[in-house]
């Protein structure tokens, strides 16, 4: 394996892509948008929220037929029921969120300037439970995914709007960015290797979805899971695919990664929960 790593590094360094002249989030997004505009000239950037289904006609047809009666409807119903069931102290989730939690998903994750940490929608749900004397839910799937699926469904069409209020937030953004571009795992691949450099190409029978617009439809119902799952459950799965040991869900690494990954798609419409392969 040492040989492979050593030689793949040679491969990586020979295909160097000049680093962006000055790295600040706004210019990052411009660079990413022009990168994908060149890569998919005949696809409007907003349509990239449909992921592979904006690129491949064969899978798009199947997806549209399945969206006739989407498999995530049950998750939304369950989520709504959970969301509206009051806690033992009589309060409910609506009391913890702006606008009662309706149509707020597009503002997540946000940077909590007091606690100096990225707060994802799932973390906010559990914070709300703990503040009201309830046990936190387990992350990734199950009730928490149903609740955030329902909340996402109330934000359909809203443009993603993640903000970076201060330097601490920018640092978290930069850490997420470094994670996204770092090669890891025994297969020595980075998120960017598949979802930027090879976006739209096939890896065996799967077409690699572009990173831009990739967060818009989460939580997502994946046929493989036969249930909805959060974006961090997908991070965990992807890491294991490249044989990297995954981090704990809602760990700082994954929250910062979600922060960067979502900020990248600012302006694109929420279309979650979506159904995917």
């Amino acid at each position, binding site marked *: 394996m040492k040989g492979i*790593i050593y030689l793949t590094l040679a491969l990586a360094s020979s295909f160097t892509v000049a680093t962006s002249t000055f790295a600040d989030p706004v210019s990052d997004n411009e660079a990413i948008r022009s990168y994908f505009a060149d890569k998919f000239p005949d696809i409007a950037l907003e349509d990239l929220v449909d992921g592979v289904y904006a690129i491949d006609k064969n899978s798009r047809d199947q997806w549209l037929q399945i969206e006739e009666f989407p498999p995530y409807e049950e998750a939304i119903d369950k989520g709504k029921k959970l969301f509206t069931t009051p806690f033992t102290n009589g309060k409910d989730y609506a009391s913890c969120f702006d606008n009662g939690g309706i149509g707020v998903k597009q503002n997540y994750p946000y940077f909590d300037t007091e606690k100096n940490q990225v707060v994802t929608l799932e973390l906010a749900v559990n914070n709300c439970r703990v503040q009201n004397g309830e046990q936190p839910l387990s992350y990734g799937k199950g009730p928490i995914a149903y609740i955030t699926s329902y909340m996402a469904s109330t934000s359909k069409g809203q443009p993603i709007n993640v903000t970076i209020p201060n330097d601490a937030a920018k640092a978290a953004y930069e850490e997420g960015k470094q994670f996204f571009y770092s090669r890891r795992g025994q297969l*020595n691949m980075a998120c960017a290797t598949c979802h930027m450099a090879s976006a739209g190409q096939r890896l*065996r029978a799967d077409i690699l979805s572009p990173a831009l617009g990739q967060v818009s439809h989460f939580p997502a119902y994946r046929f493989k899971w036969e249930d909805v799952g959060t974006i961090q459950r997908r991070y965990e799965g992807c890491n294991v695919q490249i044989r990297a040991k995954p981090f704990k869900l809602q760990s700082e690494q994954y929250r910062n990664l979600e922060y960067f990954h979502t900020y990248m798609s600012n302006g694109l419409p929420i279309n979650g929960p979506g159904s995917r392969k």
Partner: protein
Amino acid sequence: MTKNNILRLAFLLALPVMLTACSDKDNGTEAESSIMEQQKLDSKPFSQDVMIKTSDELDLQELMHRQAQVERQADKYGFVWSTTDAIIDNGYAEAKKGNENGAKALFKEAILQFNLSMEQAKYANQNWKLLIPEND
């Protein structure tokens, strides 16, 4: 080897490795055996300070101790592979069965994977910006 021979070889080596990304059956054993041959290739790691020495005259106990030591170090870098835990479990299983050589090989391999993950972390730290799309 001239530069473009390295490139051609690198690409050939990288391609199957990339393809295995999408195979669901985790062919751990195949990877383990390729690692064992890898050990014979004496290419130097990037820096000596982190590398925990694994040489043949160490006994099983010492290897187990070094494996735990290098694991703590590797965890700090955060680039540990998902394959290493299983190798350590197999190591303990073989040790319990009394198969000392088998156990020693597995612990040496686990140490190697932890060291490689640290080298990967160091490389990523210096070079992650290479994959950022050009800001033209």
